[in-house]
């Protein structure tokens, strides 16, 4: 998944004198208040941070309130989706007009009907709503499916993404990964390794033969049972 990055930042944080008694707590609080908000300086949404104080000495600013400036070094996890990036998320709502997705558990995305390629047709199967591909019977998108979509625009205030499923590389991740061999445009290994990182706790070694998404799940399930 694109859009996630880790940044090293040199920060200077200015604290009010009342915070001088417990500096580390104040720093964490200040940084905490920036979480899940879009920050112009970082050009992204701050998701996580790890911070170290560089210098025990801090310069005091002269003024009505003598704020003091602390130099910090921080590792920041940032999320900054840009147009034409591919993102992955889980479908939470599906209707004829739109597909609603949640990315990384906090950002909402919508893909409206006009941004869904003609290949997908809306169907109701046993009261379950889904989008099924006309050309590939197995390619189905319904509530709970993880899909990959293209970013059209990103609302920085609400962290709301408008996405599209027009491009051929978009759709249900499960199906896409299984059929990646057919897709010559993609760099398979980099895609897979990115998937592996994203899939988190699934332990797969780099040197193994390429496995499909389902096998990933099966393997880790087996591991969990034996442990």
């Amino acid at each position: 998944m694109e859009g996630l990055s880790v940044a090293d930042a040199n920060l200077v944080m200015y604290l009010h004198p009342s915070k001088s008694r417990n500096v580390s707590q104040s720093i964490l609080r200040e940084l905490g208040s920036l979480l899940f908000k879009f920050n112009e300086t970082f050009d992204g949404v701050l998701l996580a941070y790890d911070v170290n104080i560089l210098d025990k000495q801090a310069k005091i600013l002269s003024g009505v309130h003598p704020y003091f400036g602390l130099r910090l070094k921080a590792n920041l996890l940032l999320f900054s989706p840009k147009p034409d990036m591919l993102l992955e998320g889980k479908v939470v709502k599906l209707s004829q007009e739109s597909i609603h997705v949640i990315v990384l558990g906090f950002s909402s995305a919508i893909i409206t009907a006009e941004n869904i390629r003609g290949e997908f047709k809306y169907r109701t199967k046993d009261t379950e709503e889904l989008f099924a591909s006309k050309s590939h019977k197995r390619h189905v998108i319904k509530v709970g499916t993880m899909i990959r979509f293209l970013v059209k625009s990103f609302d920085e205030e609400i962290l709301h993404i408008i996405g599209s499923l027009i491009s051929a590389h978009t759709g249900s991740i499960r199906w896409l990964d299984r059929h990646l061999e057919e897709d010559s445009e993609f760099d398979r290994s980099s895609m897979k390794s990115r998937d592996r990182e994203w899939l988190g706790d699934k332990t797969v070694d780099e040197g193994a033969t390429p496995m499909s998404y389902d096998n990933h799940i099966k393997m880790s399930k087996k591991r969990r049972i034996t442990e």
Partner: protein
Amino acid sequence: MGLELPKYPEMEEDQVFNFTDSEIVSHVKQALASVLSGDNNSYNQLVGVMHHSKHLAPDEVALLETTLKALAGAVSSIDITYHDSLLSAIFCMSMWNYGPHVADALAELIVSLAISNGKYLDLCLGMLVSNFTPPPYFLDKLKMPHGLERKGQVLSRVHAAFKKIADYVPLAPLRLLTIVLQGMPTIYHKDRAIVIYVENMLKLESGEIGELVGSTILMAVVDRLIELDVEIGWDAILQDDFSKGIFEMELEDVDDIEESAEPDVGEFRLSRKSLAGNSIAELLDNLLVLTFEHLESCEREGRLAKVFETLLQSFQFVMFYACALDPENCGMRFATMLADLFVQDSQPQPTRMSAVSYLASYLSRAKFLAASSISSMLKRLVDWCLEYCEAHDGDINPNAHRVFYSGCQAIMYVLCFRMKVFVDVPRLKSELLIPLEQVLKHKLNPLKVCLPSVVEEFLRQAKAASLFTVCKTFIFDGLLESELSRAFGGLERLDTFFPFDPCLLKKCDSFIRPMFVFWSMVKPTHDDAFDDDDDDDGSSDDYLVQDFVNENEDIMNDEFGKSFDEQGVDMDDFDYALKKMSITPKATSNYKFGGRFQEPARMPSRIRPSTSPESL
């Protein structure tokens, strides 16, 4: 008034039912799209349907419902600039005006709008929040069964909509929080909107998104309560009669001024009667009842401990009630927190002094606290005071040792209420009372500095219980406070600060009352022989009067509770009261600790010998 029904193409009366949902949706989409090309006809008709809200005929209701549902399906075609008249019509709609089906359709539309585009999210949440309160004409109907039914219907849909939006837009609760807090009616809104608004806020706290927004909402509610409390403080106190001692406050006197023997005593007492007409007091009362009921439901759901952490910063009777619901955890946590605040050198002085005053008042008044808890807290205070004495070898100096004196006063105050606890247990006597004796006899001389009424009562009880002997006799002549006590109390008068004095608000008092220790309940009956004061009025009538006063105190408390818990004490009143005391010595002799009445005429006229005391 006539509504022109939008003309769907090829529509005749009987063909309406033949349209499928998707056909209607596509027609609406067409109408919306046509605006971009300049053709506003069908669009304007659509807007017209939205605006029509009062006195709808059944087919108009059906039309509205259908239109709303169709719009819900067509949200992707709504443009924020071209269709702003439609949007403003939608956002002005109030669910209170409609029946359940239309309300459902409207809620669905709002949810769809909110999740379709970030631009609409705040507007939609705002629309839902504005539905917390009914339109003005409806406020009176709220009490009637029809009104209550509508209220339940609307609010359940509103909160369900919040949940749905939060499911699809995870960060929505944060935005909702800001909107809810901004939309809170101020206490100056004379209509009852704030009560129902707070009801909604508390519902949010206990609802499914409560985890995310709960603590901030609680704090906002509490802030409002505090605002109201302060408002009462300035409104209702005109002149207060401070010649009365602290321990007689509850033995209240007549409400009517005419019955008073002193013609120049023309004051309003901060009694329940004077608060009765006060609308702000009523508002506060209602809100407190809401809060208490909310706490009860928290307790039932087992969430009280979590909610308590938030409340720790808050309003005193809310705290009291919360502690009462869970004495072992919350009750002790509160007491420990206060004690911690007191002993920390790093805290500012006024904070430490108010903390110990809160602690003293709390330990005295909380019926639900175990004797062991009280004694352990007291022991902590006594030990701290003893340490302080040993570290400071100075003479009496009210200003320099303010924290110390407030600590001593707190101990004495608690012992006045809880003497029985310590007299019966010999171990406590040695653990607690021996160090206490050392403290009291130290050069710093707290007995001289602390509030005379407290000291007097404490010494009287101590003598009666033979706790220890005091070498000097302290004669205060019924003084409320002395120069020295005022000196340590400082500008904030923390020497007379007893926050948990009886609650004056009628409705919420019924919640508090069962767990509250009134002075009458623990007051020892003094024998004449122990009376240090020389005003020996000794006729047997007085004892009868005294006993009746004791027995009937609960009746009196019902009407005439008095409290000093207002922090905004006016210095002018004090001076006035002091001057009064010197002018009218007769008055002061009435108001001794324990309130012996010399003049039966001062007895409330309601109380007759044949009246039997009401049980609590």
